[in-house]
Every structure is written in structure tokens, then in C-alpha cells.
């Protein structure tokens, strides 16, 4: 009971939106800065790139070459130009995959957690089957026959997130669905779908935002990894993951073609993860690090 009296000022802060509270955490601000830096590189980069994206400016793997800052890549294209062009697609694909995964996962999670019973069983057992595969293996499995196609990558990565998101959101929903304000709506026989939308969903937004951030981080990692394995974006696309794959044999001769994209991916994922951590601190009580 003591806690109730002390919670008054904390309660007032609670009225500020989740995002506002998250931005008060220093980590979130660092994360935002890092993410914006990479976003700017990826979307403004092509405008300032010194060469054409497919132009050959010299021999392959040159550490220094006139007219280039970071040398040339495996085919003799300008590393800096390739780098500045190489983030856009990765970001767009990751974002789409995340939205698909979190969207489906949240819908399934709320439904399962609120309806319980056989609906819950069916949905979650189906999810268990997908959960038995590491995400990268699911992706490889489906890509093996259909081949690397953009829509397929987005869909597979998104779908492989869905059961993981569903688990978390179901857990959060269970806690909310037990609470009496849901019962109060049921006593008035408010339709179930409306209870799910207007009573439950607003109370799991914290978990939802955290999942969004978390899954975005993993989407970036996964899609970049697929390109790195040669099974994602295909040449001659300029893409960070692919650049690493194409140029890593010459790591000792011309390291920039690997160092630049790898650093960009690192800064980006660290940035999004810091934001996610800020969100989870702001919404409090959400366990991090168990839902990979």
C-alpha cells in the first residue's frame, strides 16, 4: 500500500507519452543520433556520391587511386560511391519486414492472449513450429528453391519475426486481460474486438514499441547477413552486406570496402538497439534480451 502513495509523482510523469519519456533517457538520445547519422548517409549519400554507382574508376582492389578517397572495390568501382548508395535498400527492406512481422505478431498475440482457449492453443502451437527454426535457417530454406527475390526476403524475414513477437505480446496481453477494467467492459458486453482494440491494445503499446525497435534491429542484421551470404541482394546492386561479401578476400589490401559498410551496419544496429533500450526503460518492466 505504501507504494501507492509514493507513486503519485511518477504517475504524473506517466502522462507524458512513451516517446517523450524515452527521449529523457540519455541512451535513447545517443541511439537517435547514431540512427539519424546512418539514415542521412543512406538517403542523402547518393546525392553527394562522387561517381556513378556502376562506373569503373580504376583497377580492382586499389587502396589508393586518383579520384577516390577509399580506393576501389573488386571490380574497380569507387568504394565511397558504392558505400553511399548501399544503405537505402537495406533500410527499406528491413523496415517493411519489421512492420509485417510486428503487425502480424501483435494481432496474433493480442488475439491469443485475450481469447485464450483453443484459439490460443492453435495460434501458439503453430508459432512453436516456426520457432523451432533459427531465423536465418528459415530464410535459407525458403530462398533455396525460389531464389533471392526482394519480396520473398521481406516476407520471410517478417514472418519469421511474427511468432516471436506474438509470444511477447501474448504475455503482455495476458497480464492486461486479467485486469478488472477488461471485465468491466465485458460486463457491459462491449464486443470482443472492441475490447481488444480500445481496452487492451493501449495498455500493451509499451511492449509493442519495444518489439518494433528490437525486430528492426534484427531485421537489419538478418537482411544484411543474407546479402553477406550471397543469398540476399544480388550484384550489381550496391549494398552494404553484399559489399562485405565481395570485398572481404582483399581485407589486407583494400580494407575500406569492408570497413565502411560493416561500420555503418554496426552503428545503425547499435543506434536502433539503444533507442529500443530507452523505450523499454520508459515503459518499464519489460524484459530485454530473451526474445531473439
Amino acid at each position: 500500500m505504501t507504494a501507492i502513495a509514493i507513486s503519485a509523482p511518477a504517475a504524473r510523469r506517466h502522462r507524458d507519452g512513451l516517446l517523450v519519456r524515452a527521449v529523457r533517457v540519455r541512451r535513447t538520445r545517443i541511439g537517435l543520433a547514431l540512427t539519424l547519422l546512418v539514415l542521412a548517409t543512406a538517403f542523402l549519400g547518393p546525392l553527394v556520391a562522387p561517381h556513378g554507382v556502376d562506373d569503373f574508376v580504376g583497377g580492382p582492389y586499389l587502396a589508393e587511386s586518383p579520384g577516390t578517397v577509399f580506393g576501389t572495390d573488386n571490380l574497380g568501382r569507387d568504394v565511397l560511391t558504392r558505400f553511399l548508395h548501399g544503405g537505402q535498400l537495406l533500410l527499406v527492406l528491413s523496415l517493411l519486414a519489421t512492420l509485417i512481422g510486428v503487425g502480424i505478431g501483435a494481432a496474433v498475440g493480442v488475439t491469443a492472449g485475450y481469447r485464450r482457449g483453443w484459439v490460443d492453443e492453435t495460434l501458439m502451437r503453430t508459432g512453436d513450429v516456426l520457432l523451432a527454426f533459427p531465423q536465418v535457417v528459415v530464410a535459407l530454406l525458403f530462398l533455396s528453391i525460389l531464389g533471392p527475390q526482394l519480396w520473398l526476403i521481406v516476407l520471410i524475414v517478417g514472418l519469421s519475426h511474427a511468432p516471436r513477437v506474438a509470444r511477447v505480446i501474448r504475455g503482455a496481453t495476458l497480464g492486461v486481460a486479467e485486469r478488472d477494467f477488461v471485465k468491466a467492459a465485458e460486463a457491459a458486453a462491449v464486443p470482443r474486438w472492441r475490447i481488444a482494440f480500445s481496452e487492451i491494445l493501449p495498455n500493451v503499446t509499451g511492449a509493442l514499441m519495444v518489439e518494433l525497435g528490437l525486430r528492426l534491429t534484427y531485421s537489419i542484421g538478418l537482411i544484411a547477413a543474407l546479402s553477406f551470404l550471397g543469398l540476399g541482394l544480388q550484384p550489381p546492386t550496391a549494398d552494404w552486406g553484399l559489399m562485405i561479401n565481395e570485398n572481404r578476400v582483399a581485407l589486407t589490401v583494400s580494407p575500406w570496402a569492408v570497413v565502411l559498410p560493416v561500420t555503418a551496419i554496426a552503428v545503425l544496429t547499435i543506434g536502433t538497439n539503444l533507442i529500443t533500450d530507452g523505450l523499454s526503460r520508459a515503459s518499464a518492466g519489460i524484459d530485454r534480451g530473451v526474445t531473439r
Partner: protein
Amino acid sequence: MTSTTPTTPTTATLDVDHLRISGVPSDAVIVDEVRLEIAPGEIVGVVGESGSGKTTLGLGLLAYCKRGTRLDDGRILIGGRDIAVLPAGEVRRMRGVSVAYIPQSPASALNPALRIGTQLRECVGDVDEARVREVLREVALPDDDTFLKRYPHQLSGGQQQRIAIAMAFIGKPRLIVLDEPTTGLDVTTQKHVLETVRRMCSIYGSAAVYISHDMAVVADLVDRIAVMYSGRVVEAGPAAEVLARPRHPYTARLLMAVPDLAGERQMLGIPGHAPSPLHRPDGCAFAPRCLLAEDRCTHERPPERQIAEGHTARCFKAGEVRVEPSPRVEPAVAPTPEPVLEISGLSARYGRKRVLEGVDLTVARGHCTALLGESGSGKTTLSRCIAGLHADFEGTITLDGEPLPASSFRRTTDQRRRVQYVFQNPYESLNPRKTVRELVLAPVKHLCGAVADPEALLQDVLAQAALRPDLADRFPDQLSGGERQRVAIARALAAKPDVLVCDEVTSALDVSVQSSIVELLQRLQAELDLTLVFVTHDIALVRNIAQQVAVLEHGRIVEHGPVREVMQNPQHAYTRSLMKDTPTFVLEGTP
């Protein structure tokens, strides 16, 4: 509590002075200026409502600070040694031997992963098997090996609390701190636990600090009482004296707020609510709620004043405080009422467990019918069946002769509108993401369709529930517990119901707030001709609010009738034990 200076050698078991405990990092003062002196063998009751700092004080007596608090100032002499300034190792050696602690809920204070025997043996430095068994016998528990090998979850709530008591006394400490050790226990178990505490204290000559929010429990048990409000001891003195002639207005009002088991005295709430430690007023913390408050009370903090031998109070008006209990007025209700709800042959299951068995009950129009029972008696399930929240039952419920479908989703809009439900815990029953306006108007819009003038309706029901109109734009977490429960009641009233089902609506609230809610419900019953179904575990409360009572035990109604008859002449053994075991006290001047 005569004047002692720090240098005077003291014979007291506990001598606390100038104790201050603050929050970290907020610096809010949680407990301040506490002076407490306890003679060997004496039991002192520390009484306070939520947020008064009583638990923080209790832990402080063992030099233990919860995360986010720190011992700021003052001394805590136990047997002449100041535990507040001793190094950590010394403090540790004093715990369990000089001072021991009995927690509020043994269910969470006993380690779930360790056997009872392990948890008892580790208390005494060297394993002394004989001592373990001796103390088990003293608290009337089995002392055989099988029992010692059990895990906490294999014991009943009463047994767990006895283990906690045994654990505290195993090292024969001079001082025991008990933090509401009977919370959550039913009255009969509570009585046994209290008897055990009293016996153990006398066996070992231990002094005890008994922390509680319940005046009636304390009145029964302790030699002296210290009343806490907002982090300070506002009144302290011999128990009989404090109960008979309270000198602080808060004590007086608190006593009058306690429901009278005999039903002679009107229970009176205290308006407002206690301030949070972060927003305590400059002057007397009770001034905003005090009828006697004058100008200086709001900006000057009253010092501790001695009123009689060993009786102190922190109030400028200590001499003027009077307790004038008013006789209880039975509300005027129809003497031969017609039934509005009729329940017959109702049996309900919860999962595979049967929780109600063949319940027959008639609820009279305009009356308040109490469903009385301990936890697990099925009283809440019964109330949820009535509201259509628990559909897994057989039997019939009729509303004005018309059978009600089991699930609220199958009832007609009008049926749902006419039976409204108020939940036990207002911290759970209001969606934290909605404003009071949305909360109150949403069900009406759903049940009655478009409301002609929603704003007028809102203001109307807020006024009925005694809520300020400007609260309409607040969110639940900007309200106090009492205000939240009033919002929940206003939400039910907005539908203009015939029957209001109240499930333990006061049990999450402080005594002083509980009384205000009861006053409100009684007024609504009379003004709106409401039928109330009042679910409670508190027999004294039944006496003060209901006209009819149904006593439930293990899912059956064991006794049913008008409150006056049932309580004056209880027929069933269970009702009689409830009457006998409920702690009570008679306030002086009660008519």
C-alpha cells in the same frame, strides 16, 4: 515516554529518538522525528494507514533500509546498543538475536526453494536441533522430520505465519517487530496467530512492536499505542487511554471510522486523503483534513506535547479534541419488500473446482444484501454470476421474474444496464489510459445508445459520487484510491441501474476512506432507491451497511436472514465463530 536524554543509561529494550528515514534519491522524508521507547515485555502497537511510513519504520528498527530509502538521522538503542550506527557485521549479528522481524506475508517471505527445516535451522548460529523442535512445539506446529522436510507451499497460510513466528523467536530476541502479520488471514486464523504472538512474547519476555492498520486488532493486543500519520508519530500513549480519550484529531476520527461490530455507533469517514511523502504540507500534515484546523496549523508544524503521564500528541488543539460517537441510524427501507433478484439452485465451477453448491438467495428491492464469507467461500463468484461475468454455472437467476442468461454477452442491453458491478480494486478496474470522462461515459454509450447530453450526465453522476467536476479530465493515476473507487461507482451509476453489485469495494482502501465509501453507498441506496449486493469478508461492515445477510462457507449459504436477527442470534456455528473471533473495541461514549 518520559523525557530521556541520550546520555541517560536506559533500561528500555528499545529506545528510538529523532529517527529520520528518507528516500534516495528523491530526499522525500518518509519517517521523521520518531521517538519510541519500549520497556521489556511491553507490546506497542504502531497504527497507521497506507503511506504513513509504518513499515519503513518497522524495518528501520532492524537498521534495514529498503532500496530507495536510507537511515538519515537519530538513534535506535536496542538493549543499549545503537543499531543505527553499528558497522554492518555487528548489525547482522544483532539481527535474529537482539531483534527479529515477522513479515506481513509469509507466503512471499519464506524461500520457496528451501525446506522449512533448513530455513529454521539457519537462524541459530550453530545447528541446535532440539531448539528448532522446541520452538515448533511452542507455536503449536508438528516437530517431526516429515514436517521439517516440507516446502513452504505445502503449508497453509496460518502454518506459514506460525513458521515465521517460530523463526523470529528461535534466537530468543529481546525485541520482535511484527509487520501486519495477520493480513490476508481469515479471522479465526488471525485470532490463533495473535494468541500465539502474545504467548510467545510472555514466554520469552520479549518486547514487541506490532504494526497494523487495524485499530480493533491492536486494541485487543497491545499495552501502548503509537499512531502514525504522514511519517510522524502524532499520538502515543497507553492503549486504554488512547482508545478512550484520543488527543489528536486524527486518532479520534480514525477511531470513529472503524465499523462497530455491535452496530450502535455510526461509522464516519475522514474526508480527503493522506498526502504523499513527496507532497507533504508545511504545517501539520493532517490539517487539510482536520475540522479543528486553524490558520497556524497549515504553516507551522505542531511539536510533540505531553498531555498526561506517558501520553503525547502533536497537535496545537490537543486539549479540545473530543470523540462524540453518534448513534447509528438505520436507513428507512420498505419493511416487506418485493424481491428483485432471485437465485435458485446455483452451482458454479471454476475450472474443475466446484466453488458454489446449490445456492438459493432472494435479494429484496431497495435493500442492501451482504454476502459474507472468507476468501474461497465463493462470495465473489456468486456476485460475478449475478453480473454475468462468470458464466460457468447451473441454476437460475431471475431479475424481476425474468430469467437472466448466464453470460453478459447473451443478456439484453436493458438487463445489463439494470445490474451494474463495482470491482474490489479501483487500481485494477479503471483503464489507466482513459480519462474519467471516457471511463464514466463509455459504458453508458454502449448500453443506452446516444446520450442526449453526455456532459450533463457526467456532471450529474460525478456529483452523486461526491467527486469534483474538474476531475473529469484526469487519468486514474492522478487520483487517490478513494477517488478512483468513486469514479468506479459513478461509472456504474451512469447506467441508472436497479441493482448495484459491490465486490469488496472497500478492501483495497484505508479505514478512513472505507467509511466515506460506505456513507456514499448508503446515501445512494436511500436517494436512488438502489438495491445493493455488498460482498465482504468483514462482519462489522455487514452490521453497518446491510439489511439482509447471507453467510457463505465453502460455497454454500449456511445462514441467511435480516442482519439484526442473524447477528443477535447466530444459528450456524460458522457465523458464531465469525462473531466471536472478530476483534473489536467499544469506543467510549457509544450510545
